[in-house]
């Protein structure tokens, strides 16, 4: 039985729509408009290998 998943929307709350974010454990360690810059900032903050996710452009965006 899989455990209840962590809600990434909570982790990303307050970030600009459309931004890329680097997450490590349950925290955002960097964010911005460009993945390469976000990765570089995360590494500058001491996180070499974060999870990269995108903040949805709008909360009602569906994927078809």
């Amino acid at each position, binding site marked *: 039985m899989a455990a209840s998943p962590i809600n990434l929307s909570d982790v990303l709350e307050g970030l600009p729509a459309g931004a*890329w974010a680097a997450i490590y454990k349950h925290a955002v360690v960097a964010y911005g408009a460009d993945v390469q810059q976000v990765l570089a900032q995360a590494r500058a903050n001491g996180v070499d290998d974060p999870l990269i996710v995108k903040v949805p452009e709008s909360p*009602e965006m569906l994927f078809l």
Partner: protein
Amino acid sequence: MARHTFAYRVITVPPSPPFPNGQTLARAHVLTQLTGSNGNSIKAVSCVDSGADGCAFPMSFALALKLDPLKMERNTAGGVGNSSNIVYYDKIKLEVGNIDDFLASSMTTFVPLIVKDIHAGFTTGLDASGIGLLGHTGFLDSCIATFDQRNLQFHLDI
């Protein structure tokens, strides 16, 4: 054959004209680590997508991997709303794991559940969503996927 069980990620969508009460969506998302042919890697979210012919990822990931689009093989692919996205390919190592396990772990080493070498596409058509697609060629052709949305789980037997 080993069974790997994942929780659907449940998304609450606010009301809109066609859905005045809002919606609750369940997405079959997994953690993927992509390691390019140059040895660089990136971790991102991907969707197990039975409607996708192959495996594809946002073009931004190719650039983050420092792959050179000018040297990559390419073709075109379509999807909803478009019919001619250019897709750039690289031979990558695909490692699949559980998003929650990674976020909850205090370990710095990612322990994948599934590892495959695939011919993966990268396209700007996926930059808006920011997630990869794990489709038939390269992924679903070598495992059994069971979608059990009623119980908010999906399984990959490989």
